[in-house]
């Protein structure tokens, strides 16, 4: 057990090194002079500013030195500052992470609320019409990209029914929960549909296998009713694999909200990243990419470890 955890942590450190190195080298091998990218095509250039930028970026140092410097700063929470907005990148992340995280949590919650009953119906009524109908719906949800779902939600709820605003974001801290929900429910639902499809497929196939087990037969022969058996006996073994995929998908959603944030003009990490890309704001691209990738790796490791701790079969091995 201890050995498993230590190997996993060592691997984590290795992966983090590799991930930061890759991100750093990507943005360092930008074609042309980074100073050009930062200053844009200005006709007049202040040599003092150019020298300042070169010094800030350490452009006159060898690549590895630059990497180590940057990594050392990053570890202390200093990711540099945007050359366009002059804002500290760590501050940008601090401001925007709660928004993206809220979206991701809401999306996962909505997905689970829908997926658990759908998956159970599919397994319980396997190959009969309720299963056929839900499976078709799930296939459909899996195939429609989230930005398309988002546009149709806007069309229905903002344009036709005029119930919800089509963009912008009210922070819970500014305007309270109710106002926040008005702006967050649509992007979260759009994100949730794909997740719902993934989760319910997993629950369905897992439960079909579980329902074949002898202990289900035993529970049935004791005369327990079907609903009790489904929720108390059959759902439990699936919760492990479900937890794993929920964890991994939560990590992926931190980066996967980019398109939906852009569509709904949600001031999260992804929207900022897209802005930075269109402005070629390199340090911001670098900072946000590294942050999201690091979170993703960390969450995956935590999920992995939890899985080891919870599942007795792996724990013993």
């Amino acid at each position, binding site marked *: 057990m201890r050995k498993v955890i230590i190997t996993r942590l060592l691997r984590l450190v290795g992966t983090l090194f590799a991930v930061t190195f890759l991100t750093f080298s990507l943005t360092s091998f930008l074609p042309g002079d980074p100073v050009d990218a930062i200053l844009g095509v200005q006709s007049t250039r202040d040599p003092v500013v150019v020298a300042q930028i070169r010094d800030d970026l350490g452009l006159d140092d060898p690549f590895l030195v630059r990497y180590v410097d940057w990594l050392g700063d990053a570890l202390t929470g200093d990711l540099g500052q945007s050359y366009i907005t002059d804002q500290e990148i760590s501050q940008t992340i601090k401001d925007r992470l709660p928004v993206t995280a809220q979206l991701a949590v809401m999306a996962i919650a909505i997905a689970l609320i829908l997926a658990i009953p759908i998956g159970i119906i599919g397994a319980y009524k396997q190959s009969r019409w309720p299963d056929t109908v839900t499976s078709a719906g799930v296939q459909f949800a899996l195939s429609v*990209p989230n930005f398309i779902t988002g546009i149709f939600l806007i069309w229905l709820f903002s344009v036709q029914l005029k119930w919800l605003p089509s963009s912008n974001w009210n922070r819970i801290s500014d305007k309270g929960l109710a106002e926040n929900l008005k702006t967050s429910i649509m992007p979260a639902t759009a994100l949730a549909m794909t997740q719902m499809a993934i989760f319910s497929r997993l629950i369905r196939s897992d439960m079909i296998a579980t329902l074949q087990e002898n202990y289900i037969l035993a529970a049935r022969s004791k005369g327990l009713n079907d609903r009790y058996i489904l929720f108390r006996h059959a759902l439990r073994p699936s919760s492990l694999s479900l937890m794993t995929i929920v964890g991994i998908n939560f990590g992926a959603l931190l980066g*996967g909200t980019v398109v939906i944030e852009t569509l709904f003009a949600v001031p999260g990490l992804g929207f900022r990243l*897209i802005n930075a890309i269109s402005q070629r704001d390199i340090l911001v691209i670098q900072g946000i990419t590294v942050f999201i990738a690091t979170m993703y790796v960390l969450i995956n490791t935590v999920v992995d470890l939890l899985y080891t701790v919870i599942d007795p079969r792996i724990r013993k091995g």
Partner: protein
Amino acid sequence: MSTTDGAPHTPDFPSDRLSRVSTSVQIDAGTQGKPKRATPREVWRDMPVLVKIAATWLVFIVGLAIYAKLDTSVFDGKLPLQDPNLQTNNFNAATGEFGTGEPIEGPSADHWLGTDAIARDTFARIAHGAWVSLIVATVAAAFGIIVGGLMGSLVGFVRGKTETFIMSMIDVILAFPALILLLALVSILEVRSLALISVVIGFLSIPAYTRVARANSLAISNREFVMAARSIGTLPRKILFREIIPNVLPTLLAYAMVASAFVIVVEGSLSFLGLSVALPQSTWGNMINQARGDIKVDIWQVVWPSAALSMTVLSLNQVGDWFQKRSAVRGSAL
């Protein structure tokens, strides 16, 4: 062999029976032992109705894409398909008149799916957008199957340090959320041509294919026929190309269908963000993005490209899933 050649006595066992046995085995191997390759007609006959519809849609989209490309590149716009970039209400210098088209029109005989916000023919734009999706998906699958398939089959077969090294590199690339790494890569491109976008997405497709190929190669390497090949001293290189890769390939092709569905969504998202192939080239994603500003007036210009994209993804998933199930059954019967 050479030692027995010179021996004065052949060993006294019933050689005739032995030879008969071995020939009968060979006959079996020649006729029934080889897995029969299904003809396209047989594959079609086995498909459930829904999969047939999906496959038909895919053939239609591929045909449409190629037709659209032929129209502009070979026939110079003379085939019956409208110019995707012509604003049909524009002033025409040659005739001295304005075009008769209207922006955001409903379907008509001239414009089957109507026109977009600047009066361009939507059907033609969807056809040309199909070409982008087709190329991106094909290039990604080619990269994945050729590079990822070869690498995965190799490391699953030889194991050892090569495997550890290659798989840890793969793990690092997979440690990024896919879209974020793609965005970071695309953001450093100066020119966003179809070729470059395809190559970037293709490069990012390699890791997943490598994983699939490795898992299959591992399983196949432990099978009896590979052990048999090893025991008679077949060169490892020959085992890899004659035994392992032909058996990994069907699974990989089925996977390619599902992976292509994902690639098309990713390209769609990238286009939607305005970071894929540069305008005026139409892509399904950028058509949706351009039309979404007008949904207060008209939703249909969003519906058409969305339907094309979603139906293609749905069809690829359906056909891919079906092939995966089919090859799994065939694999277990081997």
